[in-house]
């Protein structure tokens, strides 16, 4: 029990009466929860929790209460402030969430609109395929050998065992370089195949030699759907001790599986190239029908229902070629193979007209983008 405190003024402290505090609390809570905007909420906060709000003004009166009443009134007012504060924070969060929701909706963009401000670039499929073919052989340990496109006849023909008047030279329509002052003979040609690079590689590299040579070749063919005066080949050459035709088949089948799909069989048939002996043409099992079209399956457009597709020429390096490069043919043997890159595009990518590769139409390269 405490003694009565005569010092307080009962009139001035009615605001601290429990009912009154409750009323102020209710009014504040109603205003806060009723606030529909940040402005209204701010108004409600100022009105009910601000420096001039009844509750805050009332709390200033606590000091005037008799000591025995102070604690209770203080607790009561503090509790009311806390509740109002919480209500305000809650309402603030609600309004913010509403606002964010509204903003994100308002700011929805059409993500399907185009943004092709700059047309995309592309590599030429012949160049890409050449790189990719070379990659297969690089993976097998080969290196890339290169040579000039205008080549001495000796490299393009003689050293490759094309004797001067042999009809084999006629197999290839050769562009001859005019001699100085209009002389007919310059001893130079636009290389008709990438094979002269073989000669250069054998003359310049230490044995054993494992190289591939992709590059541009030229034949004096009139332009049509399957002939172009400018085309590309990639050739491989291996010279080592003890190489046999079985090694050649192995290299070719590894390459075919890498390029066209695993499990595809290859077939060699006799052919003739002056620089290889024996020589063969290489066919692979059709990568589309896998030979089914030739066994009575539905017709195949890619292999013309033959089941096999001719893709390359190859053979064991003719010992005469080794001799022209100063390599002892009793100790070393070699194999070589070559294929047309445009021809590979025809088989692999359905190229129908070789002219498209040198026409320069941007639609052609763009269709391939950055990966053929």
């Amino acid at each position, binding site marked *: 029990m405490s003694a009565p405190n005569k010092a307080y003024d009962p009139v001035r402290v009615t605001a601290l009466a429990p009912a009154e505090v409750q009323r102020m609390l209710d009014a504040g809570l109603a205003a806060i929860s009723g606030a529909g905007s940040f402005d209204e909420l701010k108004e409600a906060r100022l009105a009910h929790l601000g420096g001039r709000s009844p509750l805050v003004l009332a709390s200033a009166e606590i000091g005037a209460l008799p000591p025995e009443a102070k604690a209770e009134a203080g607790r009561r007012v503090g509790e009311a402030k806390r509740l109002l504060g919480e209500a305000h924070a809650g309402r603030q969060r609600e309004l913010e969430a509403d606002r964010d929701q509204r903003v994100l909706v308002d700011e929805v963009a059409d993500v399907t*609109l185009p943004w092709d401000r700059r047309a995309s*670039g*592309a*590599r*030429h499929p*012949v*160049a890409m395929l050449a*790189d990719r073919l*070379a990659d297969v052989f*690089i993976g*097998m*340990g*080969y*290196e*890339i050998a290169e040579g*000039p*496109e*205008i080549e001495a*006849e*000796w*490299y393009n023909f003689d050293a490759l065992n094309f004797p*001067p*008047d042999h*009809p084999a030279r*006629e197999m290839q329509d050769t562009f*001859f*370089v*005019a*001699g*100085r002052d209009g002389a007919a003979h*310059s*001893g*130079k040609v636009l290389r008709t195949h990438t094979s002269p690079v073989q000669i250069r590689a054998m003359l310049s590299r230490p044995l054993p030699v494992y190289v591939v040579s992709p590059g541009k070749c030229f034949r004096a063919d*009139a*332009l049509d759907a399957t002939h172009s*005066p400018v085309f590309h080949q990639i050739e491989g050459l291996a010279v*080592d001790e003890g190489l*046999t*035709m*079985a*090694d050649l*088949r192995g290299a070719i089948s590894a390459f075919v599986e890498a390029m066209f799909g695993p499990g595809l069989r290859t*077939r060699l*048939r*006799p*052919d*003739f190239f*002056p620089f290889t*002996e*024996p*020589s063969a043409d290489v066919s692979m099992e059709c990568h589309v029908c896998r030979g089914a079209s030739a066994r009575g399956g539905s017709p195949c457009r890619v292999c013309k229902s033959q089941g096999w597709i001719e893709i390359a020429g190859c053979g064991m390096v003719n010992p*005469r070629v080794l001799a*022209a*490069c*100063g*390599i002892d043919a009793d100790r070393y043997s070699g194999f070589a193979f070559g294929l047309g890159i445009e021809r590979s595009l025809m088989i692999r990518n359905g190229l129908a007209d070789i002219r498209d590769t040198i*026409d*320069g*139409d941007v639609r052609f390269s763009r269709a391939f983008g*950055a990966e053929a």
Partner: protein
Amino acid sequence: MLVPLSWLLEYAPLPEPVDPAEVGRRLTGIGLEIEAVEHVGAQIRGVVVARVLEIEELTGHKKPIRYCLVITGERPEEQRWVICGATNFAVGDLVPLALPGATLPGGISIGSRKAYGKLSDGMICSAAELALGDDHSGILVLPADAPLGADFAEYAGLRDVVYDVNVTPDKGHALSVRGLARELASAFAVPFADPAGELPAGDKPDPRVYQASIGDPSACDRFALREVSGIDPAAVTPLSIRVRLARCGMRSVSLAVDVTNYLMLELGQPMHAFDRDRLQGPIAVRRGREGEKLETLDHVVRQLDPDDIVITDSSGPISMAGTMGGLATEVSSAAVNVVIEAAHFSAPGIARMSRRHRLFSEASARFERGVDYELPLRASAKAAALLASLGGGSVVAGYSLASAPIEPVTIEIAGDLPDRVAGVSYGADTVVRRLREAGCSVAVDAGDRLVVRPPSWRPDLTDPSDLAEEVIRIEGYDKIGIAMPRAVAGHGRTAAQRLRIEVAQALAGSGFVEVISSPFGSQDDFGKMQLPADDARRRAVRLANPISGDEPLMRTSLLPGLLRVAWRNAGRGFPDLALFEIGQVFLEAEGGCGAAPVLPVDHAPGKAEVKRFDAALPAQPRLVGCVLTGKIETSGWWGEGRQVSLYDAIEAARTVLGASRVPYEVLASQAEPWHPGRCATFVVSAFGEEVVVGHAGELHPRVIGAFRLAPRTCAMELDLSAIERLAGLVPPVQAPFISGYPVATSDVALAVPSAVPAARVQEALVAGVRSVAGSHGAALLEGIRLFDVYRGEQAGAGNKSLAYTLRFRAPDRTLTDEEVAIARDAAVAEAARRTGAVLRSAPDASA
């Protein structure tokens, strides 16, 4: 070569039933690729042998028309009337008659039809209508012993399988029934009967036969003549021979010519028949002489070359040996006495001659691939006998032969060579057997060495590897196994090869489309490109035989080709283009490169010889070129697009050089084909060299006009070979030190005379910072960036204002404002010293 199966089977008797498809597969399997198989005559139905009974000449028409009564049997009801437009037959002749309902080659159906007011109940056929040649001139009159009423296709042997064999240039022997049948017999392991047969008993040289002589043994080493006399000019080529000639794609000409052609197809020996009564004096073979001329059978007068091989009589050249006969001594159908020539000419000699005169015949094709040198006597004996028997003449006994010695080829090989080449164990027995089947004589030496003498018909067998191939080929490539390739220690792509790919990818990544343009060009391009008279790019390599006379030169720049590609694309509705190409160009040395040497091939060229090759070849640098035209950014819903500008071309060059990491400078310059005020030159000054590696910018307006492109078209061209080489000198990137201390930036705006290149100002700013605190200053400047260029009053007349942001950062501390100010002031001072720059404003350094 076209060859009927029936002919092959005469000499390679395969077991019945013969599967034509399997024959084709086997031939392809041994290297005689079958390009096509045609079942000929299968379509012919309802054509029978008929006799002409009556001929009624119908008059009043534009051409003679006959109404003929024909009979196809003995009974009167087997008579019928047919209309016929030919007149080369008489009552009593036997003819092929297509009955109503018959089918002819090409699927043509024959019915009864009204013509010239008469009913034609069938059709009398010409050789052409039966696909036996192109002779439409008259109907085919059959021999008197043709069986009346017989099925004509059966009687004439029209139903056959014809193979189109792709004979590779090394297999001259396979350009004959003889050679193909031998291969076929070997493939099927059946005995081969040689159609060349043996020489007639008692055959020997006889002075009564027209005398032959060889004037040049390097041109011809076997030269045989035989004679047939008293041929009936009315004799015609029998149907069986005509059918076979037609099957092999040859025309029937006259009996003597048909007989020589027929035996050429069968044996592979080209022969020539002369009208004896048009010859004068002895026949010789020699080289042509300067000024000599010969009119050949095709009515072309040919100027002979001293390297040509000709047959002569006392009047001069009468035939181009092994290629085409002369018109004056042509054996016409009226010839009564015929001289048959069979010879073995130099293969390279015939090859050169036929190429020189662009005269390619069945004979020259065989001679240049190599003909059996022991065949002339045997083939001519067969020809004389056949001609005499078919023409009602008689063979003049004996022959006349001139010959030069031929050194037989002997090859020694190890018995296991084929095994070692193929990686297959054939065994010595198989090797010997296969070589003998090919006609070689094989002696097995001690120690498993084989001494092999190839037959006279295989001039292609000269080396041990030829013999190995022969065995492997006939045994079949399907016997060869697959060995997994051994892994070798490669080094991957060289730095230069990698760079080339990186450059291409970088350009494609920045929106350029790679194309391959034509490497051919013309003198006109130099003018269009505005090249000065002494420009090195005018020294182009000229082709002796260009595809088009309009473009006889090889390109010396990628740009003309790229500009044409751009024009083509623009014409196809693509005016906005960014193109690039990487490719070689060709630059002749001043005064032209000399001819390349032709060296022997039995040993490697020495270093000096390789140098001679190098010196003879033009420079062939690899360039990278870009062309930009139209808009580089399209207009769209985002707003206006942007036209290409010279800076896009320059940036493309920076992209390439950036990929290479080669240090370079950009200089303003004037170079064709660029706009003189809008051309940047890229110079690499490093590693003790100063190399101009190319140019970029806007093209000269006249160049743009000449290539019909949109105004302001831009281009870039760099010497990628030079950049590749220089890039090889660039040391590896050293990893940077990443400082964790704050950055301090300072902006400066400098007024400089308009003509001062921004790059020079920037260089001066950098140098200025570097001059501070020695090497420490260099480390302070992290970056510098030009962010504004202003030309206006405030910059002062004739000036421009360049605004730069300098970024400073120290590796070991936070920079003070004072340190930054010192560095900035030093930068500005150096710019002022070098370029006359005046500081317009220098905001405080801000951290």
